[in-house]
């Protein structure tokens, strides 16, 4: 995948991939979990059912870990553009900086301020107001996704810009076009739905493990129910938005689409869809594959007939379009195996999520004990806890590897974007430190979440957002009115 090896370019790409993938474990999980927790707390605010308050606090605790790791790894992302990709920053600053700054201004302030308020004011505000805080956090984090995706969408599908003749850099001509980029409004719903899936299947999966131990049955069944309802909506939405995105890709980035489907030659009118393929990427050939007729055309056009351009044909077109500016030596083939398998992993996961959500909701219906008897199903659901993270990563692999060799589609190559000041030694050092750091953070995150689950919902009030009181040894909110002595 990252075949460039120990070069500045290869190491910079590896660093971007590593930091982004790690960061993106926590982003969708946090966005989704904020929504899940907000729903739980809203139910409490409406029904005054204490179980739902406990649920919000319990899952909220795991949310806080995820949020913390998401925040600190997010700063790396922002700094990285300048640190490793200074030529990119110079080329794209006029367009890329604006959404990034708006993201910080409109979204990060909102989420960070209200998460502080939410954490420390359980006893100080009415349930409705307090629930509003977590909704604002959820709103803020979803909003942040729009802005960063606006920037990413420009890289996928540049719109609303002109090239400055004297500097050769892009300048924004229409902010309206940048934010109404069709790519953005296909990408954002898909990301948001993916976030919903991530959080709900982690909550459902963790609940399944506890139910297997017959632990706090009512609590975890209710949690599972909330999660699966959100999970079902999100997985159906994810399939629908994914489908729309695919059909946009055929026109906008045919190379990416051809690689996702493993096509080197143009497809025939029969619409054979490969379930499995093996490739010789050097000779640009499919060596063997197992195919089902019509499926490709149904996926691509919602029809039985039609053809899809293969990579070889697209490659020729790309050379015809870009050779004048970028030279004849460009390689426009994208990493076919990565895209082909990532797409299958993502698409199959999407279907599985919807299926498991439906079955789960049926087994877990109110008056039935079915869910407790179908232990095999709880095991499946428990294991599926990890799947959203793989599916999200696969989705970004397709989006980002599929843009090769461009960093900004058709305008700037990845090779031209890297910092001229970077060194192999420096990058090697930072890559190793980041890797160790991420491994450590990931491990602590898993251990802490596991510990929260093991301790169970009853322990939440004692070591939750309010730490112990130092005078009486009894628990109280450090920011509660009674905790303050006036001057």
């Amino acid at each position, binding site marked *: 995948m990252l075949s460039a090896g120990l070069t500045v370019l290869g190491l910079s790409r590896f660093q971007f991939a590593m930091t982004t993938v790690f960061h993106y474990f926590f982003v969708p999980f946090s966005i989704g979990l904020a929504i899940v927790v907000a729903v739980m707390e809203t139910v409490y605010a409406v029904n005054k059912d204490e179980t739902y308050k406990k649920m919000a606090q319990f899952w909220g605790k795991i949310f806080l870990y995820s949020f913390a790791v998401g925040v*600190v790894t997010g700063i790396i992302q922002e700094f990285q553009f300048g640190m490793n990709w200074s030529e990119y*920053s*110079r080329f794209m600053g*006029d367009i890329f900086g604006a959404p990034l700054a708006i*993201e910080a201004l409109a979204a990060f302030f*909102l989420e960070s301020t209200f998460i502080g308020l939410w954490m420390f004011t359980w006893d100080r505000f009415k349930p409705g107001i307090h629930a509003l805080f977590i909704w604002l956090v959820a709103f803020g984090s979803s909003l942040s996704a729009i802005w960063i995706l606006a920037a990413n969408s420009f890289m996928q599908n540049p719109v609303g810009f002109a090239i400055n003749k004297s500097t050769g850099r892009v300048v924004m001509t229409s902010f309206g076009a940048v934010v109404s980029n069709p790519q953005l409004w296909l990408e954002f719903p898909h990301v948001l739905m993916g976030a919903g899936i991530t959080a709900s299947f982690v909550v459902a999966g963790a609940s399944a493990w506890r139910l297997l131990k017959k632990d706090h049955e009512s609590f975890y069944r209710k949690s599972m129910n909330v999660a699966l309802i959100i999970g079902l909506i999100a997985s159906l939405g994810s399939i629908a938005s994914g489908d729309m995105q695919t059909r946009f890709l055929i026109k906008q980035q045919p190379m990416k689409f051809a690689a996702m489907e493993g096509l080197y030659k143009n497809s025939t009118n029969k619409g054979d869809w490969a379930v499995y393929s093996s490739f010789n990427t050097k000779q640009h050939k499919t060596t063997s594959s197992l195919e089902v007729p019509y499926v490709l055309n149904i996926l691509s056009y919602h029809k039985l007939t039609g053809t899809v351009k293969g990579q070889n044909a697209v490659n020729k077109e790309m050379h015809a379009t870009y050779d004048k500016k970028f030279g004849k030596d460009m390689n426009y083939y994208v990493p076919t195996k990565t895209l082909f398998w990532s797409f299958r992993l993502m698409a199959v996961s999407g279907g599985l999520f919807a299926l498991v959500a439906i079955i789960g909701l049926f087994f877990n219906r109110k008056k039935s004990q079915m869910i407790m008897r179908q232990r095999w199903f709880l095991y499946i659901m428990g294991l599926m806890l990890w799947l959203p993270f793989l599916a999200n990563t696969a989705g970004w692999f397709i989006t980002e590897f599929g843009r090769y060799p461009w960093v900004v589609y058709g305008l700037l190559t990845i090779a031209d974007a890297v910092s001229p000041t970077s060194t192999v030694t420096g990058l090697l050092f930072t890559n190793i430190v980041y890797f160790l750091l991420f491994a450590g953070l990931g491990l602590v995150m898993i251990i802490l979440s596991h510990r929260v689950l093991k301790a169970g919902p009853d322990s939440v009030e004692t070591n939750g957002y309010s730490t112990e009181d130092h005078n009486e040894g009894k628990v109280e909110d*450090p*920011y509660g009115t009674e905790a303050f002595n006036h001057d």
Partner: protein
Amino acid sequence: MTNLQFLWFLLIGVLFSGFFFLEGFDFGVGMSIKFFGKNTAERDTIIQTIGPHWDGNEVWLITAGGAMFASFPMWYASLFSGYYIVLFLILVALIFRGVSFEFRANMQTAGWRNFWEWAASIGSFCAAFLFGMMFTSMIEGVPMDKDGNIFGSFTTYVNWFSLVGGVAVTLLCLIHGLNFLQLKTMGELRDRAQKWNKVLYPILIVGEVLFVVLLYLSTDFFAKKPGSTWGILIVLVLLTLIAWWGVVKAHNWTSFIASGLSLISVVVLIFNGLFPRVMIGTNNVNSILIKNASSSPYTLHLMTIIAFSILPIVLIYFIWSYWVFYKRLKSPKAA
């Protein structure tokens, strides 16, 4: 230089001022977890003082970075790629301290709690020190080519001036943090914070004098803008004296505001000295100027509209969140 370019140069300064004022006491409080707090109960209280705020305070840095990218891409690209290792270390420090508060609270063994307390303290210390070092070495001038690529050696980043600058900023943050603790705690913690600052202020004065001498020797600030440079330095010293007086007289608000404004005056000093440049080259011909470093007029115009419509709303709820937590924390009893 257009008016909008000048406005955005000011706004970047304002954002960094906000960052140093707010995250300044966060760093100081963070450092004091291990160096100042004596036991777990005290450390709990120390962390609680910034618990609801540190994340929002850090957003000032993220916004400053994002705004710099949006308004002065050439500045952002040169500074961030040129200070690669320094910024990387800052990131590592920010990561450790950022997760430490949440992780520490949920550790079961004293050993691991201890680990995250050190992570918070050292992380805060390094972040403050490295930021100080970075901005000090930046105003000395850095070896840059005509495209703004910085090819520095070790001494570009680490030299007597930048070390003194790093220490001075660290000290300012620590003092500012202790002033914040005096504002937010009661009893023994508050008294001890006062006692510490009574000792630290004379040291800070010495540090500031040393900094001014090196500033004179290492930068062109006095040569190019003697009036304003001296003016800002006098304000800085006056603020330090006012804060010191506030500490001695236990006027907690006075000393806290004054130490925060001292940090801001350092930012003002830097931005005043930089103007009309954003990066100073060792060879002045290569310096990056405000007029050449900015985004297009269209983007600047757009960002201005957006900033001035969103920022007031942000400030309202940001200040409100401080008001919600304005009371002092109960004093901890020794465990």
